[in-house]
């Protein structure tokens, strides 16, 4: 049984930090996510069910990562990205979100417009101010990068 925040940290901080790294663009973001997760747990203590601290921490971390992703990238809706996710058991919504986040802005826009928003290439071309051929090429390139990153 976990009775103190120290025990909570000593048991779970390592795997939660590793999880935060996977959900984040870089170490600083992971550091923030780790801190926010445990601080939220300290504030909300005790967990809803005793003995279930681990799942509780993971849920807090996941919700915070999604909140952050919505806050900082309002154009990318997570539930939409989930629809756009390739049919792979091992790729999570957040893996896709992270791969998208790492795209350069032009590629990101092309990917989101096509794979998330589902716009026709004519409209994508108009939005990006390029030819339809160029729009197809950008979407294709961005999608390849995302697939490669989550593979």
């Amino acid at each position: 049984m976990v009775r103190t925040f120290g025990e909570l940290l000593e048991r779970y901080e390592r795997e939660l930090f590793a999880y935060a790294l996977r959900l984040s663009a870089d170490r600083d973001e992971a550091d923030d996510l780790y801190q926010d997760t445990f601080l939220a747990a300290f504030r909300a203590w005790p967990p809803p069910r005793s003995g279930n601290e681990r799942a509780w921490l993971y849920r807090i971390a996941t919700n915070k990562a999604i909140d952050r992703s919505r806050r900082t990238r309002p154009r990318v809706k997570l539930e939409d990205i989930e629809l756009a996710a390739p049919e792979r058991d091992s790729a999570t919504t957040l893996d896709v979100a992270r791969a998208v986040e790492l795209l350069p802005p032009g590629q990101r826009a092309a990917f989101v417009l096509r794979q998330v928003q589902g716009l026709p290439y004519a409209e994508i071309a108009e939005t990006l101010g390029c030819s339809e051929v160029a729009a197809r090429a950008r979407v294709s390139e961005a999608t390849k990068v995302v697939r490669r990153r989550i593979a």
Partner: protein
Amino acid sequence: MTLDTLIAEARSRLLARARREGLADVGYAVVESPLGPLWIAVGPRGVAMISYGGAPNAADLGRLVRTYGPGIVPDARRTAAVARELDQYFSGRRRSFDVAFDLSGLTPFQQGVLRATARVRYGDLATYRTVAQRAGNADAARAAGAAVGANPIPIVVPCHRVVASDGSLGGYAGGLDAKRRLLAIERGDDVPTGGWLRSGDP
């Protein structure tokens, strides 16, 4: 930079935030000593617990949680002062402790007995009966013995200086060898060389 380093830095920032919010009232660390690892906890009113064996005594930890809540966190900075004084004590360079100690959560009788214990001077011995008298209850030698035996802050509250009326050592949480060793240090005939103490987060 290793994962452990990243985590250690993140933890130290987390604990600073938790302290500012009043979510981390007690800091603990394990320090090495000539009597083996000691688990030390320091709360807002001073040293709250010293446990032989490097892990908290379950009953005392329960009392700490009842008194201060769950905000008991690894924090070697909080324990640094008492660790330094213990180092000096073990190497024969300190005869009394300057750090405050905290008996919150114990009964008034237990607190009285332990305060009387804390007044037994370096190198002196007292009996359980004497300590009971000084705590204001001369008839309670047996209860005083129990209170001394449950001392949550050994060494700093020097329960090793309390012995049975027949001159036998009585008991000791750290084992009778530890009690003999502490009394020998205070007689000046068993002083370990200094500089052995290492301190760190568990």
